[in-house]
């Protein structure tokens, strides 16, 4: 068995989980939701195994490096992080319906990595040979993953509150929306996810700064990647303060969370594809 087979299993599992979650929303059968969660676990275990295998394969090639060295590896790690955060939230809050809005992010990552990214294991250039790489990438991606979950939940919130306000006089929201958690729970989950993501992003920025200081003697140089991570930080800091301000809760908070995740994705991918800077992912 090699890592590519396990990555295929991961992608298929995430696709299946996504479809089954959507079926659950229409069928309202709890057994189906349980099945979808089980598939998530299978995918997560395969994803973990695949990353582990890839680590081993790099060692066998003589490269002592964690499997976080290029865009391909970072995308599959992003998918893994999303599943980790999702499954932890599932264990704690047991809101099955949000899987339909969170797993698609992980599936999108996996399918993009497998279809169009270069999976070659390449050795690291000297600047990236540092333990800080591991700390920096892990903290950043756990943060990104929590923001992905917050974004999915916010989309659900906006869909549900729009329909609820329209149908307020008639009857409580039925159909697919009936399976959504209440807007209060969605709002709370949004906040809880960002409460996990924000300290992680903070740690990610700090470990990045510490590393930059070790490698170049500057902890902050307003490189586009650094600046975008700070932009993301500003947006979520605004979100956290919005929670305590009248007029900023509910819809606006949900939109801030969605903008925050859009900025996160631009920070992660857009900066490398559109702008120039220090984070080249080794090509």
């Amino acid at each position, binding site marked *: 068995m090699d890592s590519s087979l396990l990555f295929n299993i991961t992608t298929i599992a995430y696709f299946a989980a996504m479809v089954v979650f959507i079926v659950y929303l229409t069928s309202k059968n709890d057994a189906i939701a349980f099945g979808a969660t089980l598939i998530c676990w299978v995918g997560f275990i395969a994803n973990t195994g695949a990353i582990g295998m890839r680590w081993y394969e790099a060692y066998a090639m003589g490269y002592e490096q964690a499997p976080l060295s290029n865009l391909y590896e970072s995308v599959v790690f992003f998918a893994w992080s999303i599943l980790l955060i999702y499954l932890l939230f599932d264990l704690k809050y047991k809101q099955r319906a949000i899987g339909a809005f969170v797993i698609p992010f992980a599936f999108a990552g996996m399918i993009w990595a497998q279809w169009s990214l270069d999976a070659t294991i*390449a*050795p690291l*250039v*000297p*600047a990236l*040979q*540092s333990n*800080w790489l591991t700390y920096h990438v892990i903290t950043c991606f756990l943060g990104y993953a929590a923001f992905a979950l917050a974004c999915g939940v916010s989309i659900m919130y906006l869909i549900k509150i729009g329909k609820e306000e329209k149908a307020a006089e008639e009857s409580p929201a039925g159909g697919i929306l009936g399976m959504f958690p209440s807007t209060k729970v969605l709002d709370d989950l949004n906040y809880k996810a960002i*409460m996990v993501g*924000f*300290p992680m992003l*903070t*740690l990610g920025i*700090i470990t990045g*700064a*510490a*590393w930059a*200081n*070790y*490698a*170049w*003697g*500057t*902890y*902050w140089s*307003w490189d*586009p990647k650094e*600046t*975008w991570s*700070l*932009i993301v930080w*500003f*947006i979520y*800091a*605004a979100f956290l*303060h*919005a929670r*305590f*301000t009248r007029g*900023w809760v509910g819809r606006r908070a949900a939109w801030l969370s969605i903008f925050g995740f859009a*900025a996160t994705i631009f920070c992660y991918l857009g*900066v490398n594809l559109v*702008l*120039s800077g220090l984070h080249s992912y080794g090509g």
Partner: protein
Amino acid sequence: MSKQQNFEDRLWDFFCSLKLAIITLILLALTSIIGTVIQQNKSPQEYMEMYGISESTYKALDAMQFFDMYHSYWFLSLMGIFAVNLICCSIKRLPRIIKVVREPVLKADDGLFRTFSNREEIVTEGTVESVCDKIVSVIGQKFAKPVINDEDGKSYLFAQKGAYSRFGVYVTHTSILIIFIGAMIGNVLGFKAYVNITEGQSINSIWIRGAQVPTPIDFEVRNDDFKVEFYEGGGRPKEYTSDLVILENGQEVLKKTIEVNHPLTYKGLTFYQSSYGTTGDPVYSFRVKNRATGETVEVVGPQGKRLSLPGGAALIPMGYAPDYQNFGPAAQANIVAGNQQNGSPFLVFKNYPQFDERRGGDFGVTLLDVQQVYYTGLQVAKDPGVWVVWLGCLLLVAGSCGAFFLSHRRIWVTIQPLEKGIGVKLGGNAHRNQPAFALFFDELKKDLDDALSS
């Protein structure tokens, strides 16, 4: 509150407001984008070429400091407002928080009990003292040791946990100000510089960025050796290292091999391995065999020099590649006979000594070695503020974890004699994460019921 506030009060309220914080954060996020789209700190010519703008457009944008926006007056002003907002918020709210933590309400009256979302009333038997003892032991075990106040035949209990988590927010806010202070110290007292040192040579001055002349430093740095290693089968560098020696008055005081991610610090200056290059001509050594006589000689010399061979011919080293098309080190050489001006240049490989056999000619040439003199490129930084920044970062992480994941939980109990039996009022609250506290409160109720009925 009167509507006719004076200007000072309104200014104070403005700088204390949470709305200002949100708007400042969003403005900081939006304006920061500019500097990631427009490349920063380029020359006027580069801007006019890159973006195809006229000189007048350039001047207008330059006047608005768009080309060094993170140090512009408007961006720094925004940061300043952010800092003032942080300070004012803390000054306004901190005294109340200190009072809540240091002078807790020890005796809850009925009015306070009505405000609790978690409350319970139990009627039990015994005396106030015996009931109080039981409750103190349960709360002490399951939560925290309560403070007991007896008054008018009633007993009042108060217990709390995580009171200091109330300060998490303020630690976080202060840490941001500390990071700002650290950055300012670095900007005023520190600098960034660079220096190149050729192998075997030493320097006692460095080039501060943007300066026209080098700046002397009060010690010497010598580069004993520079090495670069490549990954197999490709030009990707694996690592490069410099053996640096610090000298004071000609005496060696410190030796360290530095590489990328492993700098050397001495007297507040840190030297980072940043780049490398070659300097001067490489020196070649070849083994040359006279194919007719079988006689072998070794010749050594720099590029371009005629290295004489027995019999009047000469070998001229012409060029060098550290890794020629993945075949490793290669040299281009030429052999000219005594009376000839031009031969035909050929390639020899260090890793493939037999390669030249196929060429034919009077001499068989093997490349033994090429010595290239390298210089090491070092970044030099002095930043006395960096430890202040790290302290700020540490507090930022600790403060935000405290603010997000801990909560101040309080429990009040009043025990009083009733006409029949003893009445127990139990109430509690948490300033964050109420659902978790509600679960805990239900558990506590059960434990108290069990203890009181036993």
